[in-house]
């Protein structure tokens, strides 16, 4: 297990942790980290936000409770976009994690710190959270395996919510076998999470992947080449591969941003400089003025953007045009996925349309351009479908990920596919200087 001096040194270089443990037990069976929007006793839970500075929760999130019970030692909280609002982990008040393959590039987001920790630390398992692709995207950019399970399979008790109808706790690791080892540990019914359902339970004997439908999408030449090569490799593994089209996918991204912003804006309403985190405002102000001043000062640029967008789409006169419409689109997309799953075990796309961009490239993107980066990772998240990003190639020296999506509750097929894939695909390790 990594020791504290090495962990501190690694974190100085890559900034994947917003907080690390004050001491590390060498007796623990395994080390793990948790995204900073999961509560853990002994750590702050700030979700990348300055407004939550000083918030020390008094209880463990359900997934952390289970990992600790299984013998795990929590070595730190990983950096993330504020409240999960972002695809590049640049929207954090606590530093920007650096991609281990090129420190001038992004780790992806919003679980960027988790993917970086998984890529850099030997034998490490990182708990991440996905709302619209926040596990798959950073897994792809950092060259690790990342799994988001079926919506409801893992309890969100102790999660600082972003979009309640899409939030899922999942796992990232260099080793595909870790996903199959730890997902059963964190899965299960939990009455403390109203969306927890876990039915049917995760199969103990994972079923084999037999057929894949490839959905072509817009991607860079380097990503396309890696996917084509993966397609051939899958065929050589006796997996039936066929190309299909999914017309409804073009509506997934706007539907996602309507629902996620609407839900996110209501969730952020509770952060006002009183109940959680910072409480150091001017108490001589009136209630509304105090809340407004604290939120205006301590919420970040992207959070404000999504709060304004989400509040607007929920306003009288716009609700049917945006929110209700997006709910209908989600149903239509789920139906189209289901019709494909009648013939295939999984749907395959690139995880991201491009390799990890450089920070200077991201700074030049408009808000909408950054949202468009999620075009491939949003559909399964919107639909609550289990999905996994697996490293499948390299372009310009940077990792490329492919994403497999399975039907609700068929998480086991993805876990077995990842284990089989790992035997075939020789993933590179980033060079890590300690």
């Amino acid at each position: 297990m990594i020791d504290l001096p090495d962990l501190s040194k690694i974190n100085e270089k890559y900034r994947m942790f917003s907080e690390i443990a004050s001491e590390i037990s060498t007796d623990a069976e395994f080390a793990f980290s948790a995204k900073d929007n999961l509560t853990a006793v002994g750590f702050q839970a700030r979700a990348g936000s300055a407004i939550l500075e000083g918030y020390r929760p008094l209880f463990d999130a359900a997934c952390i409770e289970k990992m600790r019970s299984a013998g795990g030692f929590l070595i730190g909280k990983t950096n993330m976009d504020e409240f999960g609002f972002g695809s590049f982990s640049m929207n954090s008040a606590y530093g920007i994690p650096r991609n281990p393959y090129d420190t001038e590039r992004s780790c992806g987001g919003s679980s960027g710190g988790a993917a970086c920790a998984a890529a850099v630390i030997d034998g490490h398992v990182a708990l991440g959270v996905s709302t619209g692709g926040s596990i798959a995207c950073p897994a792809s950019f950092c060259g690790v395996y990342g799994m988001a399970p079926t919506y409801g399979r893992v309890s969100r008790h102790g999660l600082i919510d972003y979009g309640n109808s899409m939030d899922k706790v999942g796992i990232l690791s260099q080793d595909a076998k870790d996903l199959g080892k730890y997902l059963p540990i964190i899965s299960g019914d939990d009455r403390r999470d109203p969306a927890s359902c876990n039915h049917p339970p995760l199969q103990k004997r994972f079923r084999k992947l037999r057929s894949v439908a490839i959905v072509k999408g817009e991607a860079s030449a380097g990503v396309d080449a890696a996917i084509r090569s993966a397609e051939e490799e899958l065929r050589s593994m006796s997996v039936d591969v066929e190309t299909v089209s999914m017309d409804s996918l073009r509506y997934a991204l706007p539907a996602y941003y309507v629902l996620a912003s609407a839900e996110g804006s209501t969730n952020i309403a509770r952060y006002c400089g009183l109940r959680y985190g910072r409480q150091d405002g001017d108490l001589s102000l009136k209630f509304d003025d105090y809340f407004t001043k604290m939120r205006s000062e301590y919420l970040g640029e992207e959070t404000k953007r999504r709060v304004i967008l989400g509040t607007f789409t929920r306003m009288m006169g716009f609700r049917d045009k945006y929110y209700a419409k997006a709910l209908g689109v989600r149903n239509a997309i789920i139906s189209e996925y289901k019709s494909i799953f009648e013939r295939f075990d999984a749907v395959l796309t690139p995880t991201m349309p491009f390799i990890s961009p450089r920070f200077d490239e991201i700074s030049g993107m408009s808000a909408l351009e950054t949202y468009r980066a999620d075009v491939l990772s949003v559909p399964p998240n919107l639909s609550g479908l289990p999905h996994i990003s697996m490293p499948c190639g390299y372009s310009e020296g940077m990792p490329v990920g492919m994403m497999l999506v399975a039907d609700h509750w068929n998480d086991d097929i993805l876990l077995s596919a990842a284990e089989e894939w790992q035997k075939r695909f020789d993933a590179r390790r980033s060079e890590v200087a300690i």
Partner: protein
Amino acid sequence: MDRETVTKVARIAHLELTEEEIELYRSDLEEILDYFRVLDGAPSSDGLLLNPVEVSDVLRPDEPHMEIPADALLADMNTYERYVRGPRVQ
């Protein structure tokens, strides 16, 4: 999307924006809402579900109880004689 609408929505959300922020968000939201227009031609379906999978309502029993001691909850709060300090009501 105009500046007045951005300011009004921000006020509802308890946000006070600078002049630069109003212009930034006006411009961004105009572009984003324009992109959302693709939804006008999207297929829809009956019976809107709030979640992507069916979940049963899980309500805890309506029994008062304290999971965490009050003193522990107050330890990190800004308090005066075990009351949480807050801004003025009037």
